[in-house]
């Protein structure tokens, strides 16, 4: 190799060394290389040089980084307030964002626990004319789909049930599922032990078998593998345990035990919509294809079974959309968007702090530059400093997130789907690391930019004050952005808080105070109808006379609580047209005579159920005021005939007030009530109004039930207020979280305003001093500073309000009783934030007003 080429290669290779090192020693090293080229054998020289180069350049880099790190730590330690503020600010940003990301990750990003989940669909029956979007399917319809549809690899179904587990230990009532034999293979989950159900076990007289959930297996049977093959007593009869299912089998939700779904078409009614249908699409079949195929089948069935199927069609959605409804996704997206502003705000603040510091250090920088330090080296120092801050902030943030996630999990586990899956894992930590790095880079750039343009002479001459117009502009823009973010968050939080408040004050239609509810399911085998009726009559009789209880009743379901929510269509007597359009869908309940008195639901007309309604005579019904108006207008309906879609006739004995049945944010729905215990549902809810704390009545209730049947469990024992709180928990969570974020952002913004103004006052000390020396009042100087700060604040407020207005559609869907562009909210929030900004301006302004002109001028 010619010497010239070798030297050129060597020169190129020297770029491996840190810049400063190369600048210092490159000529020497090249001269040395040239000398060795002349004196030594190239074949030996090159390998030696290359090896040396790799080792020593790496060493130089490490050494330099280590030095930079030491230097950075020393500088940070020397400014403890600044460092603590920066690290805490970053920790807040990283922690808040990571915590919410852990929720987004668990709920929206983690795949469902089934292989190829995209091919799994949930199928509902719909009746658009009656405004029914998602309804359960009837067993005969499901069987017809199964026979006719070619687009599914498997189509299965499940229904809810409840079983009383007796035998060893306390009697316990278990949430259960009746599943088709193909549900487990369809989901492609493997039993942990044993097997899935067999098709022959679906038959009406198939073997009596059961599958336990992992949870129940561990809780009740101490994870004993020998339980498989043994029999346990369910609803008073023995069933053989054939398998243990993993946690992924969540159908129906929270079920702990499963039995085969018995399909007996001879006993099923096509109009009885009771089961949930799920399916796995055949490979290559799209959702749209499957949907249109099944819709065509449903349309044909309307012709074949006009009596039950007219007006009914189908709808399907991917599993994911079913399990995580759009409402939840919107709420999470809003939250995540909001919380993403927090690290941004933190970032802006730290950049601001660093910037102010870089300016105050510009003299030091200039001196170092003058002494021969390269700009590159100084930039490296600054970057190291901001990286150290970012890393420390990231670690503190991850710790914060770890605690926050534990709190969030508790808060959210019940109120959002997959809430129990929330945890800190590798993706979540990677996310925290990612945002720390991004924020570190973002806020590190500002002072870097400044250093790159530092004017040496200017900095040395000015005694450290180098406030140029551009930099001033940059800092001000940062503060405006902070205030704008805080404004947006505060408006969002305020809207959600109002929405939550409205929910709490929503007219329920009953009085929830001091009500205790508990569910009982009497096994039909042990309690045929008459026996069950006697059981409930005796229970209510005992409770009514118990101390501390003012009223007691039973119902097939209580508002907001557990129970049966199905609706039925009622026919308006004013039309002879029997089309579905003239039907009114109404919720129905079976209630005992004292239900309305216990719940404090007002009787509007007629009478409540009495003993005369319990026999076989007549068909009494009570309806809600809303249903009465829908069907009969303003006429007096007491004593009138009432006809259900299924052609059954009743006589209206009374009209009662409207009640919010399903949710606080849903208007009361039309309702009809049938007398109990003449009619009973397998699961009934006992409601009692206590004279004191309703939860104290729980022991009493348990003892009364035990006196009647020691093997009969009660479950879901809750106060009515607890049911209502659960219903409002999502709204409360949203409001709470956004309020926390808004407060954090507001604190950050206030610190931002304060920082920038303080800095500005320091920079202008001599100018302000001269003003005072020339006769300006302290108040004039203060006004000058206040004006500077408030101008920024007002611009920020305006930008934030515009931003909130632009984003109003996003938040609208989760609001109740308040509009996303509510002017009152906007004005109140902006006014409050203006006051906070004014307070943040006061200290620097006060300081400016107290500048001693002599002292200020002497500093020149």
């Amino acid at each position, binding site marked *: 190799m010619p010497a010239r080429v070798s030297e050129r290669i060597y020169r190129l290779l020297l770029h491996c060394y840190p810049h400063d090192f190369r600048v210092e020693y490159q000529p*020497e090293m090249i001269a040395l290389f040239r*000398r060795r080229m002349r004196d030594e054998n190239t074949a030996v020289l090159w390998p030696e040089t290359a090896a040396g180069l790799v*080792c*020593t350049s790496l060493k130089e880099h490490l050494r330099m980084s280590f030095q930079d790190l030491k230097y950075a730590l020393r500088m940070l330690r020397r400014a403890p307030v600044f460092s603590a503020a920066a690290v805490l600010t970053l920790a807040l940003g990283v922690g808040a964002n990571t915590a919410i990301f852990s929720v987004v990750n668990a709920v929206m990003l983690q795949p469902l626990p089934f292989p190829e989940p995209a091919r799994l669909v949930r199928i509902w029956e719909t009746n658009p004319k009656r405004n029914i979007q998602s309804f359960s399917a009837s067993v005969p319809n499901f069987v017809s789909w199964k026979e006719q549809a070619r687009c599914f690899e498997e189509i299965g179904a499940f229904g809810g049930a409840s079983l009383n587990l007796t035998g060893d230990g306390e009697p316990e009532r278990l949430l259960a599922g009746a599943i088709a034999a193909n549900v487990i293979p369809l989901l492609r989950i493997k039993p942990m032990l044993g097997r899935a159900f067999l098709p022959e076990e679906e038959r009406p007289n198939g073997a009596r078998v059961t599958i336990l959930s992992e949870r129940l297996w561990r809780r009740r049977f101490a994870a004993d593998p020998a339980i498989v093959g043994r029999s346990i007593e369910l609803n008073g009869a023995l069933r053989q345990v054939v398998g243990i299912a993993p946690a992924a089998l969540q159908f129906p939700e929270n079920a702990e035990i499963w039995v085969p779904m018995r399909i007996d078409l001879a006993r099923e009614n096509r109009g009885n919509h009771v089961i949930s249908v799920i399916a796995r699409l055949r490979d290559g079949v799209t959702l749209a294809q499957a949907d249109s195929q099944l819709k065509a089948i449903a349309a044909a069935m309307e012709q074949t079974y006009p009596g039950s199927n007219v007006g009914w069609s189908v709808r399907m959605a991917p599993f994911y959309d079913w399990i995580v409804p759009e409402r939840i996704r919107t709420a999470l997206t809003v939250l995540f968007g909001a919380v993403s502003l927090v690290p941004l705000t933190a970032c802006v603040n730290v950049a601001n702090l660093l910037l102010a510091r870089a300016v105050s250090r510009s003299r030091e920088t200039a001196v170092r530059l003058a002494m021969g330090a390269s700009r590159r080296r100084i930039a490296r120092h600054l970057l190291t400093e901001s990286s150290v801050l970012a890393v420390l902030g990231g670690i503190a943030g991850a710790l914060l997130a770890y605690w926050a996630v534990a709190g969030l999990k508790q808060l959210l586990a019940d109120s959002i789907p997959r809430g129990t899956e929330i945890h800190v894992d590798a993706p979540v930590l990677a996310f925290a690391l990612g945002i720390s790095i991004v924020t570190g880079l973002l806020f590190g750039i500002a002072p870097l930019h400044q250093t790159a343009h530092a004017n040496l002479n200017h900095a040395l001459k000015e005694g450290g004050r180098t406030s140029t117009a551009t930099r001033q502009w940059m800092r001000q823009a940062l503060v405006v952005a902070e205030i704008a973010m805080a404004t947006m968050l505060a408006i969002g939080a305020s809207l959600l808080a109002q929405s939550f408040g409205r929910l709490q004050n929503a007219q329920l239609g009953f009085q929830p105070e001091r009500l205790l509810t508990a569910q009982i399911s009497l096994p039909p085998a042990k309690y045929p109808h008459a026996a069950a009726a006697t059981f409930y009559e005796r229970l209510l009789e005992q409770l009514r006379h118990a101390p501390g209880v003012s009223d007691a009743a039973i119902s097939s379901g209580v508002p907001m609580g557990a129970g049966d929510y199905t609706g039925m269509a009622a026919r308006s007597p004013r039309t002879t047209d029997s089309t579905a359009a003239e039907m009114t869908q109404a919720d129905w309940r079976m209630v005992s005579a004292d239900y309305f008195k216990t719940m404090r639901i007002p009787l509007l007309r007629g009478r409540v159920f009495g003993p005369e309604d319990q026999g076989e005579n007549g068909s009494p019904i009570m309806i809600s005021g809303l249903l009465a108006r829908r069907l009969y207008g303003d006429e007096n309906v007491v004593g009138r005939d009432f006809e259900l879609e299924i052609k059954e006739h009743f006589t209206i004995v009374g009209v009662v007030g409207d009640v919010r049945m399903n949710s606080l944010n849903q208007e009361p729905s039309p309702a009809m009530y049938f007398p109990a215990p003449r009619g009973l549902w397998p699961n009934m809810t006992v409601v009692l109004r206590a004279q004191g704390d309703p939860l104290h009545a729980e022991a009493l209730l348990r003892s009364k039930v035990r006196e009647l049947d020691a093997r009969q469990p009660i479950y879901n024992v809750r106060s009515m207020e607890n049911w209502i709180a659960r219903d409002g928990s999502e709204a409360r969570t949203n409001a709470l979280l956004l309020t926390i974020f808004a407060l954090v952002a507001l604190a950050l913004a206030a610190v931002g305003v304060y920082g920038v103004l303080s800095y500005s006052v320091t920079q202008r000390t001599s100018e302000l001093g001269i003003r005072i020396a020339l006769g300006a009042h302290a108040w004039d100087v203060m006004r000058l500073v206040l004006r500077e700060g408030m101008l920024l604040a007002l611009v920020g407020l305006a930008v934030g309000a515009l931003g909130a207005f632009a984003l109003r559609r996003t938040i609208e869907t989760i609001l109740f009783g308040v509009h996303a562009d509510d002017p009152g909210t906007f004005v109140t929030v902006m006014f409050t934030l203006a006051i906070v900004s004014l307070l943040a301006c006061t200290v620097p302004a006060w300081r400016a007003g107290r500048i001693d002109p002599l002292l200020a001028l002497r500093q020149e």
Partner: protein
Amino acid sequence: MLKKPAEPDPQSLLPLPVAVFHILVALADEERHGYAIMQDVADRTGGQLKLSAGTLYGAIKRMLEDGLIEETPERPDAEYDDERRRYYRVTSFGRKAAMAEAARLSQLLSRAKAIGWLPKRG
């Protein structure tokens, strides 16, 4: 600003890295430039220790920072050509450090000798 300590204790630098001690020895009696140092070390060790350019200048950089050696004004290398070279010489602090290191090594050697680990000279 980085401040140099007034008069550091030479003991605090011990043990000196091999390259540093060799460079100090090479500069003991005369000022040398980089290549000359490298050659001197190679000659003295019979070619066993050949400092690479990176090791050499890395060590020189650190020794300058620690005040063990100092630079003398650049001048041409009379022996070879008229290219201007940087020359280095030992400072008094460097001399103290080298002596301390020598004493440390000598102590170590006498221990080794006492237990018979040192080969007898021929």
